[in-house]
């Protein structure tokens, strides 16, 4: 609805421009020149993906506009489909998963390449693919301009990918900078574009590539999950805000693209809440906002730095932490998360004393890699019984309130509908603790045990699982033919 409206507005604007060219500079976009600029680095990305939810798996084919960003063939595209599902996957065994199975990249002059999926950035939803070339072919990548000054009312343009029954495949579209958002982050907003155009390269009136089309997320509804420690349930507005992911942001991503399964973000190891104005007043604290430390994970950076439950973080590296609403918590989480592991961070902390009053402290923490999310945990697939298991991760222990020192097992992460494991009673999310009375600590154990079992081809395999806070035995009858 909103998109239609913005398109309609854009249409009217375009109409006005056509009718009254003397009032506008938009007409001055020279698309012949622009096409010449983009034709070397613009590609069409065809992806076959496998979408699985629980025991259901579907195949689908998607088509995206891609842009080559390095001379060795790194391509960016709209990775929303691959990443937008994280919110659902943070905890339970029910993970919605999208796995690219086949990627084909076609240049505008018709050359075809195979592509390798690299990963998706959790904040911008920009997806990364690497073109597979023989003998190290070099490409002419886009060079984003680091523009800081975005003027409200100035025009921007991009190319949009048309459906595959239309030729030529690209069409131009224009929009306008509508405002420059300062919070929750610096973000020039645009009108005139729609969500289907996400990650398309935006050009300013000088035909400089200034960034790509991105979406400004309401931080309170953002779907990233730093090890499952996020808690926010405030209702958010559904308005889609499109704007410019700027050149300097892109540069960081291009140098160090996100890789699936590789943990590249940091954590502090606390649960937290916002220091609201009311709360600050109640505790007689003269600061505009901050982070209340609710729990400190054992041996985490926070624990090692000496942070305590109830501490209030009000400065990070000397910078005021201006968080006075729950909705703003993701700003702090992102700040920590985006720093490199092993970074030293200085926290200014207020510690309330039992007898009243506060102590002011400065604590130095060395950040660590965030614990692995369930989604990224390594999996083992057993084809005989048709199930997949993954290792237990930090958030499992936290969510189920289990002791990682004494509780071991692997989580059933996927079951083929109608497969033996499914029919005989294993469930998604079951935590397998023993197989035929042999303890299971990780997927390597399962692989080893299942391999040995297969040699003797027994009629039944007994799984001892933890389900819904209780244990039970499950007899899976086998069919080795």
């Amino acid at each position, binding site marked *: 609805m909103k998109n239609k409206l913005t398109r309609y507005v854009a249409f009217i604007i375009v109409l006005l421009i056509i009718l009254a060219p003397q009032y506008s500079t938009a007409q001055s976009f020279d698309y012949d020149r622009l096409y010449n600029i983009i034709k070397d680095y613009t590609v069409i990305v065809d992806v076959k993906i496998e979408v699985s939810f629980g025991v259901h798996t579907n195949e689908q084919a998607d088509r995206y506009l891609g842009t080559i960003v390095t001379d060795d063939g790194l391509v960016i595209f709209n990775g929303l489909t691959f990443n937008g599902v994280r919110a659902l996957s943070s905890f339970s065994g029910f993970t919605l998963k999208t796995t690219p199975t086949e990627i084909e990249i076609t240049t505008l002059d018709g050359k075809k390449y195979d592509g390798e999926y690299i990963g998706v950035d959790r904040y911008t939803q920009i997806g990364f693919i690497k073109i597979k070339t023989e003998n190290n072919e070099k490409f002419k990548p886009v060079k984003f301009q680091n523009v800081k000054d975005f003027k409200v009312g100035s025009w921007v343009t991009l190319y949009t990918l048309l459906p595959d029954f239309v030729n030529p495949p690209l069409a131009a579209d224009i929009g306008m900078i509508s405002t420059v958002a300062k919070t929750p982050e610096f973000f020039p907003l645009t009108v005139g574009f729609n969500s289907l155009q996400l990650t398309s390269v935006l050009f300013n009136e000088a035909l400089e590539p200034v960034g790509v089309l991105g979406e400004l997320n309401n931080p309170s509804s953002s779907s990233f999950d730093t090890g499952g420690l996020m808690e926010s349930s405030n209702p958010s507005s559904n308005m889609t805000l499109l704007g410019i992911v700027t050149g300097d942001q892109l540069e960081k991503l291009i140098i160090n693209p996100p890789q699936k399964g590789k943990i590249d973000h940091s954590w502090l190891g606390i649960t937290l809440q916002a220091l609201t104005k009311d709360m600050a007043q109640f505790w007689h604290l003269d600061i505009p906002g901050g982070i*209340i430390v609710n729990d400190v994970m054992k041996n985490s950076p926070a624990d090692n730095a000496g942070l305590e439950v109830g501490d209030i973080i009000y400065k990070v590296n000397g910078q005021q932490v201006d968080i006075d609403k729950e909705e703003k918590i993701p700003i702090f989480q992102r700040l920590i998360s985006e720093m490199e592991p092993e970074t030293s961070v200085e926290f200014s902390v207020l510690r309330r004393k039992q007898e009243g009053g506060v102590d002011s402290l400065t604590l130095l923490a060395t950040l660590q890699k965030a614990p692995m999310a369930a989604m990224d945990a390594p999996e083992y697939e057993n084809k005989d019984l048709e199930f997949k298991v993954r290792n237990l991760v930090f958030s499992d222990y936290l969510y189920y*309130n289990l002791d990682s020192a004494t509780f071991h097992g692997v989580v059933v992460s996927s079951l083929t509908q109608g497969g033996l494991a499914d029919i005989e009673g294993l469930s998604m999310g079951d935590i397998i603790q023993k197989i035929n009375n042999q303890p299971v600590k990780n997927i390597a154990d399962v692989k080893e045990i299942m391999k040995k079992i297969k040699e003797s081809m027994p009629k039944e395999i007994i799984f001892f699982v933890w389900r819904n806070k209780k244990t*039970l035995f499950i007899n899976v009858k086998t069919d080795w033919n």
Partner: protein
Amino acid sequence: MLKFLIGFIFLAESIFAVTPVESIQQDIYNARDRVMPALVHIQPVIKDYNTGELEKQAVIGSGVIFHKDGYVVTNYHVAGKAERILCTLSDKEIVPAKFIGGDPLTDIAVIKLDLSKYPGKIKVATFGNSDSVQVGQYVIAMGSPLALSRSISVGVISTKDRYFGSDVRLPSGEHTGRYNLWIQTDAAINPGNSGGPLVDLQGQVIGINSRATLYANNIGFAIPINIVKKVTAIILAKGKVTRSWIGLHCQALQELENYFGTNRNSGVLISSIDPGSPAEKSFLRAGDIILEVDGQPVSARFVEELPKFYSLIADHEPGSEITLKVLRNEQEYTFKVTTKQLGDSQGEDFECKKWGFTVKAITKQMQIDNQLPDTVGAFVVGVKPLSTADNGGLRRADVIVKVNNDDLKNFSDFIDHYDKYSLAKVDKVLLTIKRSGATRYVLLKIDNNKGDTLNEK
């Protein structure tokens, strides 16, 4: 084909029309006349705390008089949380009743009619023997389906040993069904039939109708009367049923006999042990097979045999010692377990009217269900939308452990704090809560000038 079918039905009718149907018809009349006079239409007003405030709801159920002093048996989910109860007897006279006692685990409650102003004379229904009922036997369900009082429906017993496992919950949150099987019938049972009698053709009550199935036709369930007899006798004698608890969960052995090397029809498999339970302290563990309880052989090859085993344990006097002969790794061992009293499933409810939420005391069962470290504090049952508590960020299932700077010792400690602060009309209270194991702070900003002070005298 259709013609043939119709012909067949006519044929069938004409065969049975001679004698049996007439006699069944007569039996139904007789049974009706014996039980209908004791049938009770029950209108309790129950207390519901789930929305964050105390809400009173009028509900409808059924019951049957089983004692000459005016005792009526019904379901716990009908009368268990009742504040006041009105009953309409078969002669349409309305009499008040009071709650005597109930047992959520078998969903049975007993209420007593106040007959001081009743002009008539009550009739008492007789209980039969549910062990001797047969699948296919005719039965009559009586009660108030959808509040339509004095209704009867007829069917047969579809199954007499239906098992539902221990995870069934009553609307008020209590577990039920661990200690009984169910009689399944195709006599129509609808909401409102709850607590009404299931009657055989001799006019004896063989079950108490308790559950129906949504989106299905004629699949209803009654609690066997032998369970009801046992439970009502205890309620009349002691007010409530006390059971022993050792913290075992068991599983049918049928599929696992080979794996554990057990004989057919021998032993009960322990599948899970509650943390901190007597069974855990006695070093029993999942995978042990109990062969004997106090020298008496036990077995549960099928799930339908589990309620009997659970009852055998539960029927011990709390605090008594049970001797279990156990098979572990094909060796026999003897364990002695001292039982504890099985506590209430759900704790006492309390409404924090001025703060906009409801809480309940944390029982051992709730501690296990919600994986809490202990039973300290107050469990949030509901938060009233847009209330002080809602604005402060309190949520259902939060556990309040601290009010301002005071650690709560127990539930009444919380109520004392609530009373103290609401009486003193403080405008800010800081609650420290636990949510999914994590600590949080909830600041309540209380507007003491709000209307509710006027409403409350």
